[in-house]
């Protein structure tokens, strides 16, 4: 697989041309194979390439945003309800934006197939034109239909645009519509995210970095909120399980990011699954540190019937557990300390499931999770310092600070206990710091 463009070293065009000439010579002399030559060349890119790429991306971004605003504007204009226009004119108006957007898309596909900005903007306009068309007809004829039905029709008519127009912006807009639907009705509309997955993979294959990362972030955040919202509410059959479902999703995302982008990709923005996974793990593990969190006392609340949504959520829960377990077993040896810190939160999912069978004491969860965050955050901070990675250091610090903040305001622990624990941990920090400094000093004097 070719190296990610962002990770390539930037050199001047002259340097790159020199390298190309030289490597051709090396190949002719039999010093390197063709594959080795291409691999070497793949390590570098010229400054101009980067600038060109950046300018193309900003072009796409601006044009897409422009199209988005125009599309939204058309909908708002039509929503005003021009009731004096009469049915004939309003019917014509409902088709006008649709036909114009289709014409623009066709022009892009037929005459400017290489122009990504044109394709993206045409697709975004078409996306909104479909909505404007249905909305105006519904308005003209007072057609019954709640927002859910409207969004479903809109979604189904525009989903193919993602693939046929190869538009990542439309994919992001559709992700938002799916999330909207899931928040309106607790139905398994989130399964539609699966329909977007092949295009995300295609973007990955095309090395389309900016669009891939935006799409991934929006898609995964949408999926997480939809699933959690669909399972955690009063009278949901899965209400007791919501916290474990969210944590299992977080662990699976974390694993997915490394499985997909490799262990080398440690940047926050460019590895959306792992980054979102770690955010979910951090947040949910903090929730476990409080008393009063509902333990799964029942497999599900039997008074509420299980529907397709619940079965689908249980399926994604199971898939997340299996995937995370497989990832851990297959990558056992290569996992770093920070990987282990994140992935050991998976134990709480398993504790939750076993807790149902053996009716675990809540203390087990509260003590274990407090210890987990305390140890985990300190380990992350050390890792951050040792490996000179600011992200790890800051992540550990934020996690630790939130734990301290939560415990400070925790009314379940008596003040004396809290005071003693705070002083002991504080002293341990200072002692560790002194020990660490001394160690570094010894190391320095030896070398």
């Amino acid at each position, binding site marked *: 697989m070719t190296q990610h463009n962002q990770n390539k070293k930037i050199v001047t065009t002259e340097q790159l041309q020199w390298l190309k000439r030289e490597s051709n010579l090396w190949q002719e002399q039999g010093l390197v194979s063709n594959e080795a030559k291409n691999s070497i060349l793949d390590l570098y890119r010229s400054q101009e390439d980067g600038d060109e790429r950046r300018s193309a991306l900003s072009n796409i971004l601006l044009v897409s945003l422009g199209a988005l605003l125009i599309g939204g504007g058309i909908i708002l204009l039509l929503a005003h309800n021009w*009731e004096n226009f009469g049915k004939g004119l309003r*019917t014509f108006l409902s088709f006008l934006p649709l036909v114009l957007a289709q014409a623009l898309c066709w022009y892009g596909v037929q005459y400017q197939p290489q122009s990504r900005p044109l394709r993206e903007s045409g697709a975004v306009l078409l996306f909104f034109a479909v909505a404007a068309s249905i*909305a105006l*007809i519904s*308005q003209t004829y007072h057609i019954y239909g709640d927002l859910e039905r409207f969004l479903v029709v809109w979604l189904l008519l525009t989903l*193919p645009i993602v693939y046929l127009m190869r538009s990542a912006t439309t994919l992001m807009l559709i992700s938002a519509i799916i999330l909207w639907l899931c928040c309106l009705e607790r139905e398994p509309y989130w399964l539609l995210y699966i329909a977007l997955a092949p295009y995300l993979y295609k973007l990955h294959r095309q090395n389309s970095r900016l669009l891939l990362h935006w799409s991934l972030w929006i898609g995964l955040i949408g999926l997480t909120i939809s699933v959690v919202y669909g399972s955690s509410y009063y009278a949901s059959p899965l209400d007791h399980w919501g916290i474990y479902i969210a944590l299992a999703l977080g662990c699976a995302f974390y694993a997915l990011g490394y499985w997909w982008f490799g262990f080398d990709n440690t940047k926050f923005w460019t590895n959306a699954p792992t980054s979102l996974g770690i955010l979910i793990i951090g947040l949910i593990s903090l929730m476990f540190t409080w008393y009063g969190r509902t333990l799964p006392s029942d497999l599900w609340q039997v008074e509420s019937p299980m529907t397709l949504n619940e079965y689908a959520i249980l399926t994604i829960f199971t898939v997340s557990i299996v995937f995370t377990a497989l990832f851990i077993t297959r990558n056992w040896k290569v996992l770093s300390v920070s990987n282990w810190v994140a992935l050991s939160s998976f134990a709480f999912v398993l504790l939750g499931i076993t807790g149902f069978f053996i009716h675990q004491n809540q203390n087990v969860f509260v003590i274990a999770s407090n210890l987990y965050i305390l140890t985990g955050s300190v380990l992350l901070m050390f890792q951050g310092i040792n490996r000179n990675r600011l992200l790890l250091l800051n992540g550990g610090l934020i996690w630790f600070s939130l734990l301290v903040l939560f415990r400070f305001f925790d009314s379940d622990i008596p003040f004396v206990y809290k005071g003693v624990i705070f002083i002991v941990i504080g002293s341990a920090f200072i002692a560790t710091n002194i020990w660490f400094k001394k160690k570094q000093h010894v190391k320095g004097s030896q070398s």
Partner: protein
Amino acid sequence: MKYSKIWIVALFVVQLAVPGYMIFEQQQILSHGEVYKFKTQPIDPYDPFRGRYVTLTYNINANPIPTEQTFQRGDWAYALLSVDSEGYAMFTKLVADEPNAGQDYITVEVSWGGQDRGHYVDVPFNRYYASEETAPNIERAVWRRETVDDVYVEVSVLDGKATLKELYVDGLPIKEYLETQTKQ
């Protein structure tokens, strides 16, 4: 590429056909449907895409519709239509099987209730869209007259589908009624 262009054209056709069919269906109901009058009370909400509308709550829906069959909430059923002594529409019965020709009915979504006391239903013509200026005026005009029962809608019914034709107050279409109010 050629293959994908065929699919693009197919998508365009579907995108045009869906709104086209919506118009055709509504026109069919309006031209060939039987017209019923439903007593109503409008209130004024907002839709981000379709603009302002008045939600119509119907007197016909104040009581459950009698039925001999068992329905779950969310089921689709057929509400048989008739006309009361004052000429307004009323639901006589809720059935699961599509009625025979000659009997007007509306396809409705079953709401709460039971076989013993009957079921409430969601009436599928509960929105009257109007402009930003008109919608609040409709609500105001109608609420001022809540003691008078002369607010009704005309609905065209054909093969179980219903389309709202016009909202009337005092025997006048709502826009004419609002104009007369402004003149006064």
